[in-house]
């Protein structure tokens, strides 16, 4: 992978899959049922699939659509109790339908490699990485341990793990997320299988790391001429790597075809809806408010906010380590506006959100909400002030008390703040809140676990609304939801903002979602804001090299544009916040710095968040912010501006 790992579009997507390629996977009429025979749950119904060598076929669908179940059924990895039938199946050149369990077992690993979603839990925590790959090799090849170890090291090198000799003696928990997924891929490749099945291989990863893994898959496909069955919910990933797409919904295939055709001219209504609800990098907030004027009311202001977690080492004391999770952050959000807070995992965005709502204490700086400066007040006074700022959590399941009914959950904040008087009034208010988030009054008597994920998140929002706050912090509040539900919740949030004039701090790792909802954006890296300004300005002309790299890494569901893009590749994972690099914290991964022949100032001086003379709103913390525009690939901007520009 070179710095600008520009991927040539696979020789005209239309021609791939033509004759001359070996059929690795061919399934007709795959059915999977669970549960009692009298009342079966039919998870997969009559699915047909084909994968030929050298092509990537994406199996796409929302959660519960049966895509993973289909793959596990083919591999014989479903739990007992699942009943699998198929009319016809060829797996890696052999007749799958006629195979005994033992023959299927010998096929797994040898002829079909598998990569799963969560690389940490998918690797055995108490075995060394190298040993796990050695096992995969020796299960199918009669080679000595030493020879197998040599092969394992070669595999690790092949998937881009630096210093494989040493790393192969590490345990999974010593690897970073991206490295673990590389190790999983190395293990899947152990016996050079012609077919690779990858189940959501990049879903648990950050977007810049996802870009690396997708590059790796492309490379392997090209060099080894492998066939890849890629299971994913992310149409951007599909647009990026897949040759052909199979769309599943409720256990059935609803549409199949060439990637470009499906993504640009879908015919099935389900696919159309899926694509419509997809947040896009090139579509801005639907109803941007009138241009901000100086007299605008301020809902939230942080100045010089800093959160340092001190970690003592054991009861014997020792050196105290400070992790600077949030470092000198100054932001403002206007009343009724939305600030998008963007960054990869570990950048401190969640901690910042929690510091704003006073869940963690700031070690320096202060937060001002609605003109009231917080900090130093009595616990009682703070509890009263909490009416004005609320938080919606990422995981609604964990943030609702499992033993309380919904009505009780929504009444509790009212009772705590002595609002809405007596029981009857409160019940009316609960019904009102439910209606506000689009749910019926009958939900009041249900328990959280009886609700779907989207419904639960609506309850989380209703609970925050109960106190009529002027500011709501939304911490990855739509990240766990399927795109269609996500779109509904985003629309709900926009409606509530218009009707009630609430300001949002919208924390997300997903740049496309942020573009859709935010008026202003702040990008965080290792605890600091590296770029902030109006959303439009940032998406159209990023001034910080990190923002540019993030935008470049997001795959978009538009084949022509996606494959024409010249990409900025970032190497490695973000450094540990416990031990940030000197000077500009981004310099270890900065592509711009390399293009400028490694200026020394980056390693010595931390750049301040500064604006250009002509637009004081759009600020970036980079010594060379003004020189970046000339070096940005033109195609990058193409992806973020699009038709609406």
């Amino acid at each position, binding site marked *: 992978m070179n710095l600008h790992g520009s991927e040539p579009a696979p020789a005209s997507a239309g021609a791939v899959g033509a004759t001359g390629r070996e059929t690795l996977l061919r399934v007709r009429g795959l059915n999977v049922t669970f549960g009692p025979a009298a009342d079966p749950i039919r998870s997969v119904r009559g699915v047909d699939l084909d994968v030929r060598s050298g092509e990537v076929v994406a199996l796409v669908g929302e959660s519960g659509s049966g895509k993973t179940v289909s793959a596990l059924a083919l*591999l014989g*990895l479903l739990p*007992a109790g699942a009943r699998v039938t198929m009319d016809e199946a060829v797996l890696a050149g052999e007749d799958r339908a006629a195979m005994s369990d*033992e023959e299927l*077992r*010998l*096929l*797994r*690993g*040898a002829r079909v490699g*598998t990569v*799963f979603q*969560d690389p940490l*839990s*998918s*690797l*055995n*925590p*108490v075995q060394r990485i190298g040993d796990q790959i050695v*096992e*995969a090799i020796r*299960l*199918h090849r009669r080679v000595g341990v030493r020879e197998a170890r040599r092969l394992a090291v070669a595999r690790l090198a092949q998937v881009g793990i630096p210093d494989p000799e040493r790393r192969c003696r590490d*345990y999974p*928990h*010593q690897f970073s997320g991206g490295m673990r997924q590389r190790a*999983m891929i190395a*293990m*899947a490749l*152990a016996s050079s299988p012609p077919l690779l099945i990858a189940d959501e291989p990049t879903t648990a990863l950050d977007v810049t790391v996802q870009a690396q893994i997708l590059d790796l898959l492309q490379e392997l496909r090209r060099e080894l001429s492998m066939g890849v069955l890629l299971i994913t919910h992310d149409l951007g990933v599909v647009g990026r790597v897949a040759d052909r797409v199979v769309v599943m919904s409720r256990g059935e295939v609803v549409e199949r075809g060439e990637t470009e055709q499906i993504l640009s001219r879908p015919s099935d209504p389900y696919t159309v809806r899926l694509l419509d609800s997809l947040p896009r990098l090139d579509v801005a907030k639907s109803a941007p408010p009138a241009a901000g004027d100086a007299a605008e009311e301020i809902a939230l202001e942080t100045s010089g906010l800093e959160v340092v977690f001190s970690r003592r080492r*054991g*009861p*014997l004391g020792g050196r105290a380590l400070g992790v600077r999770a949030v470092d000198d952050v100054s932001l403002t959000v206007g009343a009724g506006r939305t600030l998008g807070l963007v960054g990869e995992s570990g950048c401190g965005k969640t901690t910042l959100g929690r510091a704003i709502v006073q869940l963690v204490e700031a070690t320096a700086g202060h937060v001002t909400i609605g003109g009231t400066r917080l900090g130093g007040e009595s616990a009682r006074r703070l509890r009263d002030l909490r009416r004005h700022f609320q938080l919606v959590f990422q995981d609604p399941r964990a943030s609702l008390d499992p033993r309380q009914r919904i009505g009780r959950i929504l009444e509790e904040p009212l009772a705590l703040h002595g609002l809405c008087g007596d029981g009857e009034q409160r019940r009316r208010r609960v019904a009102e809140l439910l209606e506000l988030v689009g749910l019926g009054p009958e939900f009041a008597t249900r328990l959280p676990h009886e609700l779907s994920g989207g419904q639960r998140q609506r309850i989380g929002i209703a609970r925050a609304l109960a106190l009529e706050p002027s500011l709501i912090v939304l911490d990855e509040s739509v990240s766990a939801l399927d795109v269609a539900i996500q779109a509904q919740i985003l629309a709900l949030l926009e409606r509530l903002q218009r009707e009630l004039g609430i300001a949002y701090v919208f924390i997300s790792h997903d740049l496309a979602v942020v573009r859709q909802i935010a008026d202003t954006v702040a990008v965080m890296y290792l605890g600091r804001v590296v770029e902030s300004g109006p959303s439009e300005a940032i998406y159209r002309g990023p001034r910080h090299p990190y923002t540019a790299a993030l935008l470049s890494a997001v795959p978009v569901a538009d084949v022509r544009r996606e494959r024409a893009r010249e990409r900025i590749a970032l190497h490695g994972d973000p450094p540990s916040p416990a031990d940030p690099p000197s000077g500009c914290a981004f310099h270890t991964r900065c592509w711009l710095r390399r293009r400028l022949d490694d200026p020394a100032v980056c390693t010595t001086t931390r750049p301040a968040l500064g604006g250009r003379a002509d637009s004081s709103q759009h600020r970036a913390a980079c010594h060379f912010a003004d020189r970046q525009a000339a070096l940005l690939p033109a195609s990058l901007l193409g992806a973020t501006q699009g038709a609406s520009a």
Partner: protein
Amino acid sequence: MASFVARRVLATLAVLFFASLIAFVLLRASPGDPARKLLGPQASEQAVAALRADMGVDRPLLEQYGTYVADLATGDLGYSWRTRTTVTDELAARLPATLELAASAMVFALLLAIPIGVLSAGRRRWVDRVSRSAAIVGLGMPQFWLGLVLILVFFTWLGIAPAPFGRIDDTVALPARTTGLLLVDSLLAGDLAAFRNALAHLLLPALTLAIPLAAYLSRIVRRSTIDVYRNDYVRTARAKGASEARVLFRHALPNALLPILTLSGMWFGELMAGALLVEAVFNWPGIGGWVAQSIQAQDYAPVQGAILLGALVYSVVNLVTDLLYGVVDPRIRLATS
């Protein structure tokens, strides 16, 4: 790793400190005059006072605790007036009998518990139902009563077990003592008759001790096996093409047996307490029977010695398992280095 070991050793010392404190408070600070108990009601007041001064029980409690700990540190556990021996000697003489019983019980228990636990974690539900009921009954039986039932059935009714008195028949010559463990000593001496006789005597008490433990451990193994099989890495192993046997023995079982290791301090403590009762039932010449007799005679130095020995064994077992756990699980070992 070094700091991990240091911390675990420190924690163990802390536990031992509290244990010694508890034993001290229980037995020295209790009402009643130990000197009077020792000398009996006929002794004169002067003699009692002299003995009190001699024993040091007239000094302040804190000072008493100091000498008590100092004595402990030198291995001095006091003197049994009933048997006229030092507690340390007596414990050392009786330890092999108890050890032989406890160790064989442990082996029996593990041999029963691991296969049963793994099988009942499997797909056949009836296996689980049967083993679950059996485990609850096994845990519900008082050990001494179970011993009596076994004696009733195998000695009184069937007549196939030897009389429940001691480790070996009086008519059989004892093998030369090297380890004190009769099974080992008789094998070393090549004395098969003695070995068979000792084994016959050992079988019932060891089973009595093993059954409740096996019942408990089988449930632990079942639960942890189920938990381990839910991990994604088991699916990964299958996806690699590993056979079910390999998945079980190489990936699942090592992780599933960890809870047995972590809980071993606890169940070893229960094993020791159980030995106390079972030795009494089978008239086994170990520490338990001796302690039981000492209690009846109100001779408390042996009782205190046994309590401290129990606490020591418990703490050391816990320490060893913690360290072993560190060796087995790299996440613990490497996180602290």
